[in-house]
């Protein structure tokens, strides 16, 4: 059972949260290549959000190659495999990490502690499966 949960008070927009949760689902192997995702309509109905919101998340996922959207088969996790780590993506990760690392440094976190934190989160995601924990 794959449960997707969204924080409605979060500052990050719903479509970004939705995109990230689905990618996390794939990373934790709860969602596997070829697995179906709900239609835009059903997803929006269950989340109680506008269909545009879900559509936006799906378009982002499709652009990056995480999902495929078929007319008949519907939405599926890309069965042909995941996008690769290319230069573009690496540059992106670097850019995203900078402010996070900077703030951690300012707050007095040393390199080892930061790397340990990353390892913990990495393993947490890979383990996945904590369905009940929706925080």
């Amino acid at each position: 059972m794959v449960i997707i949960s969204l924080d409605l008070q979060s500052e990050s927009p719903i479509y970004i949260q939705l995109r990230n949760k689905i990618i996390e689902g794939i990373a934790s192997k709860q969602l596997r290549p070829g697995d179906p995702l709900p239609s835009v309509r059903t997803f929006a109905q269950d989340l109680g959000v506008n269909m545009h919101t879900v559509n936006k998340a799906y378009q982002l996922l499709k652009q990056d190659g995480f999902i495929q959207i078929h007319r008949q088969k519907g939405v599926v996790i890309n069965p042909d495999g995941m996008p690769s780590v290319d230069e573009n993506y690496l540059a992106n990760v670097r850019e995203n990490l900078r402010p996070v690392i900077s703030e951690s440094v300012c707050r007095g976190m040393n390199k080892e502690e930061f790397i340990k934190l990353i390892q913990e989160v990495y393993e947490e995601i890979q383990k996945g499966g904590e369905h009940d924990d929706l925080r």
Partner: protein
Amino acid sequence: MIYVSMLLIFLPLVLITAITPYITRKTESFGITIPSDVYQHPTIAEYRKKYAFQSGLAGVLILVILGIAAGFTTDYLWTILYTVGIFVYILVAFIIYFQFHKRMKQLKEKENWKSKKKEVVAVDLSFYNKKLTYSNGWFLLPFIITVFSLLWTFWNYDRMPEKLPMHYTLDGVVTDWADKSYRTVLLFPFIQLFMLGLFVFINIIIARSKQQMDPANPEESIKQNIIFRRRWSLFIIISGTMMVLLFTLPQVSFVYPIDPFISFIITMVVVGVIVIGAGVLSIVTGQGGSRVNVTNRKTGEIMNRDDDRYWKLGVFYFNPDDPAVWVEKRFGSGWTNNFARPTSWIFLILILLIPILIAVFAS
């Protein structure tokens, strides 16, 4: 006889109204979203008790008035009075509910639950792949009954009398006769067909309506919700079949007259079983399956999404952003519409219009 029908329909209505706050989901109370772990809060428990008492008392009072009136009025007048009484009761019960709705709103602001909890919406991606309802194939039986009723009508047309009884009082006295024609004899088979369509439609709604879970207890609330949907689906199939079967009765009586008293008894038994069945099912299962026992109920830092602003007066869902047409009722048992969706209105109008058209066609 009048008293029997009164007790059979009015009493269960009063009972189910009075206990409504006890059968709602743990995530809402009097149409207000609450974190599921404050459901047992002493003030809310007191509201529930007071509401049950007040609405129960109002129901009993109206029942007594109707009972006394039965001794003084004619059957015809009393039937009207009885119908009015039911509507008055529904209105009074709503006013009582609304007082507690307002108090609940104030309590929620005072206790500040929202700032202590994180508001979350959760969705199970494979929810609709689970077996949520019983197959529409079960409606084959009432369908065969309806077809039989149609064919039987054509075969026996010549044997039916020139004047057909169309309307009975509660005591089984014929008050309305109609001249025989293909249109008039087709009234009941058409009603059967309409009911069949309606019940299939409800079964589809039960399968497709919006997924609603308590994010504080995701797995448990999903299990409860599946049980809730399946039980109501089964109820719809059984009661639908009973209703369709019941409407073959007047059709048969056109050719083989049935003692009005016996057909009254049969009607009352069928209606009684359905009404009481619905009541028992509501109590045992609870709205959304909230009364189905599941293990390890957790308390936590999260609460279900607060969509109070879309629930007008706490009972009418109006959310233009939400594509859902059918949603679970908040205060009550069963489902309601998202009134912001035109589809809702189309279906509501059709459900009202088709019986009127059938009646006009037959007259």
